[in-house]
């Protein structure tokens, strides 16, 4: 199992280590619910160093990214970031990603840890014929996510950057706790917050400085409940190589007016299913549980769990396109009533 640069720090802070995408990472330090609420009400700090980072440079970097990603990369000004997807030739999703424009001809792509090798091979293949250079920086990059309504004020005390001048999706360089860092006002919790790209040797000092300033260390458990409550997809669950993103609530990512790899196949694939959010009357839905419309099985839960804010079980589920309420989720042989919920499940800023 691989270790992130913060492995020793996790042990020191009581992290319960589990394996995730080949890395030893903390599932929780104290309690998933407490860590979740710390992010919704204060500031939580995650080690997301397992995620992959690719540098994309060259005179045709933009042209390549327009071809390889579904969102409109041309909209990105230097110092800005966007959520996007890598479509495959069948119009499915290789991965969902975050794209940062660092300079005129330089971009950083952050990808899911489990997909690093697959994504890099895919991009390498697509980059043939483009004047572009791809570099996998995953092993040389530590990544922290400081998330929550108090993230900005907490971080301000440790950096020379004026954070009040930085908007959502800005990316910029600054010093944090005296260490050089690339900061982005991004995250995957539905809260305001920052992600900090660091050299591995600086990660522990910055991690400790942020905890010392009052951030709550938070693990993978809270990261998952936060993204689920925020109604965000998780690759391998809501998005896969066979998912047509146009059939999901994240169809907005796909910009049909531009040309991209896999576009024709994506547009030609009809949606047999739709993705919905469900809130259960009782019980906790889990991945794979069957969803019913009345007595008829119509789909399955792709992500399920507990919402600490609603204090109820919530789920993302794929169901037949025409499926109507009343919905039920089969929880260990019993059908639990489930009401349709807009996404996100809770009001977020």
């Amino acid at each position, binding site marked *: 199992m691989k270790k992130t640069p913060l492995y020793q720090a996790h042990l020191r802070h009581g992290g319960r280590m589990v394996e995730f995408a080949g890395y030893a990472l903390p*599932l*929780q330090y104290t*309690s*998933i*619910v*407490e860590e979740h609420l710390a992010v919704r009400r204060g500031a939580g700090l995650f080690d997301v160093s397992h995620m992959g980072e690719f540098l994309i440079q060259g005179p045709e970097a933009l042209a390549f990214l327009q071809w390889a990603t579904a969102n409109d990369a041309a909209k990105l000004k230097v110092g800005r970031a966007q959520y996007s997807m890598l479509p495959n030739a069948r119009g499915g999703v290789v991965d969902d990603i975050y794209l940062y424009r660092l300079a005129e001809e330089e971009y950083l792509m952050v990808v899911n840890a489990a997909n690093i090798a697959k994504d890099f091979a895919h991009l390498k293949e697509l980059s043939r014929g483009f004047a572009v250079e791809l570099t996998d920086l995953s092993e040389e990059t530590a990544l922290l996510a400081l998330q929550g309504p108090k993230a900005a004020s907490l971080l301000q005390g440790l950096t020379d950057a004026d954070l009040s001048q930085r908007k959502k999706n800005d990316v910029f360089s600054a010093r944090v706790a005296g260490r050089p860092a690339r900061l982005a006002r991004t995250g995957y919790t539905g809260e305001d917050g920052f992600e900090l790209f660091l050299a591995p040797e600086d990660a522990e000092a910055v991690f400790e400085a942020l905890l010392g300033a009052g951030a709550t260390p938070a693990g993978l*458990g809270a990261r998952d*409940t936060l993204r689920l409550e925020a109604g965000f997809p998780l690759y391998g669950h809501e998005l896969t190589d066979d998912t047509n993103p146009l059939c999901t609530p994240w169809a907005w990512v796909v910009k049909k007016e531009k040309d991209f790899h896999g576009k024709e196949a994506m547009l030609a694939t009809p949606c047999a299913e739709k993705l919905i959010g469900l809130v259960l009357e*009782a*019980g*906790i839905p*889990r991945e794979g549980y069957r969803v019913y419309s009345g007595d008829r099985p119509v789909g399955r839960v792709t992500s399920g*769990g*507990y919402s*600490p804010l609603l*204090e109820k*079980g919530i789920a993302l589920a794929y169901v037949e396109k025409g499926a109507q309420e009343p919905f039920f989720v089969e929880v*260990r042989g019993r059908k639990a009533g489930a009401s349709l919920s807009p996404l996100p499940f809770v009001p977020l800023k």
Partner: protein
Amino acid sequence: MDIPKDRFYTKTHEWALPEGDTVLVGITDYAQDALGDVVYVELPEVGRKVEKGEAVAVVESVKTASDIYAPVSGEVVEVNTALEKTPELINQDPYGEGWIFRIRPLDMGHLDDLLDAAGYQEVLESEG
């Protein structure tokens, strides 16, 4: 981990506390700690006849769902309805307020087949 000496235990981390002709059942401190935040408890119906080792209740934490087994055969005579509103009692007080159900065993003597505190301690040590 706290293991009170006043009760019996199972290898599946339930405790059984004799009270008159009934037995109170819950999960151990070790079990609640391993599960993490308990957020939902599925309680059995009062009056249900259960066999030793039968799954009687379900404790759901944020992470996972865990079956709770009957430590002895008998009839469920009471359930802890407080857990419907405050399932976290299982984390806060696993040996007290966090009890789950009460069984009237067919035979109180069957409790002798269970582990005592020292025996349960050994189970935990073997699980590392």
